[in-house]
């Protein structure tokens, strides 16, 4: 009889990092479907290239650093999908290759691999691309191939820009703004038939994945809730004061807020571990997003907001602690 001795507990929950990564990837499939529907097959190609490069970059890095090869744990795949979702559909095919390589090699493996990176790799990859090839990353917007609304007047002239780009550029053009603020636009934003990055346009499809992940408790609802809530409420207030031409609803539906709030701000490794910390993190992301959108140089601020809050995460975790049972008050 050969008995094993090990420390308790002797049973473990039926869950693994691998399963979490693949499940989150699965939750992005509706949005991927939407991307293909709205932007055509090129969206799929970009995503596949991005994933393949991320996985290859991971294999390369782990090989030369003599680490265990863990390319099938799903984390590189997820980074690949998320990076692709942050690209405009008109990007040349080498863009996701370079972006993924940066994300995996510099943002992730250089810091020690999964669990040790301090910023979200996919967002780091996107920021790198934004800084290096700003024209490709912002000028290659493409109108959705299958717009839901029939009317093309008014904003049709600027349809190649994203809705947030419109309010940034045309803030003083009352016709363009009034068109944007119409219900029709809000519907389009919700369903996704607007210009933007691949995976960010359809709020509905992102929500399907997000609600699924929240329901099975793979992500904490506190981050998306506080993030989107902060943006919605504060933007509505700023709108009332005339500081932004669009209202709170427009601001939460437009841009990459849902993609960022549900799938990137909730990245375990780079967000706080406590409930309270997550509230702070989400609200912080919201405030930085608002500041960038209104006063910053870019029309959209989700990417940088999350990256900046990623950098604050260690501090939040140092300061915010749960209340211990029996702790002296």
């Amino acid at each position: 009889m050969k008995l094993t001795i090990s420390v308790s507990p002797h049973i473990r929950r039926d869950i693994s990092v691998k399963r979490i990564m693949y499940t989150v990837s699965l939750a992005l499939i509706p949005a991927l479907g939407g991307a293909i529907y709205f932007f055509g097959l090129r969206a799929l190609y970009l995503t596949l290239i991005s994933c393949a490069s991320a996985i290859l970059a991971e294999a390369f890095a782990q090989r030369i650093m003599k680490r265990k090869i863990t390319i099938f744990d799903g984390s590189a795949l997820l980074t690949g999908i998320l990076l692709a979702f942050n690209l405009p559909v008109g990007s040349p095919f080498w863009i996701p290759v370079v972006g993924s390589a940066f994300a995996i090699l510099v943002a992730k493996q250089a810091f020690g691999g999964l669990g040790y990176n301090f910023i979200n790799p996919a967002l780091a990859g996107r920021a790198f691309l934004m800084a290096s090839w700003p024209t490709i990353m912002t000028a290659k917007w493409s109108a959705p191939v299958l717009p839901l609304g029939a009317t093309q007047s008014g904003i049709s002239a600027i349809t190649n820009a994203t809705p947030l780009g419109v309010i940034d550029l045309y803030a003083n053009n009352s016709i363009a703004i009034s068109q944007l603020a119409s219900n029709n636009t809000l519907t389009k934003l919700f369903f996704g038939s607007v210009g933007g990055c691949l995976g960010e346009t359809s709020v509905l499809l992102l929500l399907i994945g997000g609600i699924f992940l929240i329901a099975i408790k793979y992500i904490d609802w506190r981050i998306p809730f506080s993030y989107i809530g902060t943006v919605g409420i504060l933007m509505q207030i700023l709108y009332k004061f005339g500081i932004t031409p669009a209202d709170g609803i427009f601001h939460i539906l437009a841009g990459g807020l849902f993609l960022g709030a549900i799938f990137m701000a909730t990245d375990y490794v780079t967000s706080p571990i406590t409930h309270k910390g997550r509230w702070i993190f989400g609200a912080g992301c919201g405030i930085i997003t608002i500041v960038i959108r209104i006063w910053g140089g870019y029309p959209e601020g989700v990417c940088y907001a999350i990256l900046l809050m990623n950098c604050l995460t260690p501090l939040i975790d140092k300061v915010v602690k749960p209340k211990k049972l029996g702790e002296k008050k």
Partner: protein
Amino acid sequence: MRVKSFSGGVHPREFKYLTSKKPIEKIPTPKIVIIPLSQHTGAPAKPIVKPKDKVKIGTKIGEPQGHISAGVHSTISGTVRSIEPWTHPAGPTVLSVIIESDGADEWKRLIKPDYESRSSTMGVDESLTPFQIIDIVKRAGIVGLGGAAFPTHVKLSPPKNKSIDTIILNGSECEPYLTADHRLMLEKPYEILEGGKLIARALCAGGTSTSGGNAKKKYIAIEENKPDVIKKFKKLAPEFRFELCIMRTKYPQGSEKQLIKVITNKEVPSGGLPFDVGVCVQNVGTSFAIYEACKLGKPLIERVVTVTGNVKEPKNLLVRIGTLFKDLIEFCSGYDGEPGKIIMGGPMMGIAQSSDEVPVVKATSGILVQKVNKLSLPEDIPCIRCGSCVKACPMGLLPSKIKDYVKASKFEEAKVIGILDCIECGSCAWACPSKINLIHYFKYGKLMLQKTS
């Protein structure tokens, strides 16, 4: 009735159905028993018998040393064969008394059994004073039977400046697989409640006068997953002036500090004990043992053990202390498949054994066998900071952070963020998707702190 719960905790699969419907069976008196002289928290008892001495059931063979210690009794009648170190199920070898049975099953009782004069009643002699009760409990060698094995007479004698106003009988039994308390509550409800009354009476004086008869609240806590027991106690508890508390089925619901928080909303201060908030928690098995000691003059010589998992016939057994694990497993028709792990206790906090030739001790609530191909020995990968452990921790700690400090040998930092508050319930490690052996780090960190202080 409102179902009560605490924050944190986990929901492992229970597998209590394996034995929850099986009545307690008495295992035949073993031919040989190995009785360790340390089966309790505190100083080991000193042997007071020599080889070839004749002993009866209940003969004291180990004398407690100091206040926090407990006496040890022979659990069969026969002859002392030897006194030698033997592998203890909770750790290294311990000096143990090995006794061979003479088959006579003769008794030596602590007091004249009450039933001879008052056979018709369940009740215990009302004339017993608190001091007498505590004395009997001490002489009976009773310790907490929930697992910690803290000497019960110490718990019943709080310091003079602490007064106990709340008594909780703990029938939560939150560890998966275990059903020993479940069956005991179902089969011996009167005895348990009588024992509860004795505890209340003992604490009226608590050995001192200041904590005078003020046990205002008496509770019995049972988890929701035992509806048959709840039904029984709903009727019975009020007769004994006990309030029934139905607890949500969640691990570690039966942990002392969690139980106190849930029932009284009081928090045992960090580093403190339940009497600091005026509460005394006793396991239902302990309560039963107190009853048997005071009513029948029985020292703690046997207990209920759930033998479960990969044995052919899982059972609840009434076992003499000192019986070898392998005898129990044989009585359950042997192993089902090749055993890979034999665990004393439940799967969350139990201790993996190196052999099946270890004796049942006072703290053995169960024996869980896992077969080789069912072992859960996952390889750990780096923490992904998902926060599962933080959510699971019933003490409100940051397990992953404590682990980081211990791993970096920063024991003082680990202490600052509460490593000593950790109850080692295993919830964090159970929940961890990276399969990190968190409890290993906590035990190691505590040990290192102990060494340096």
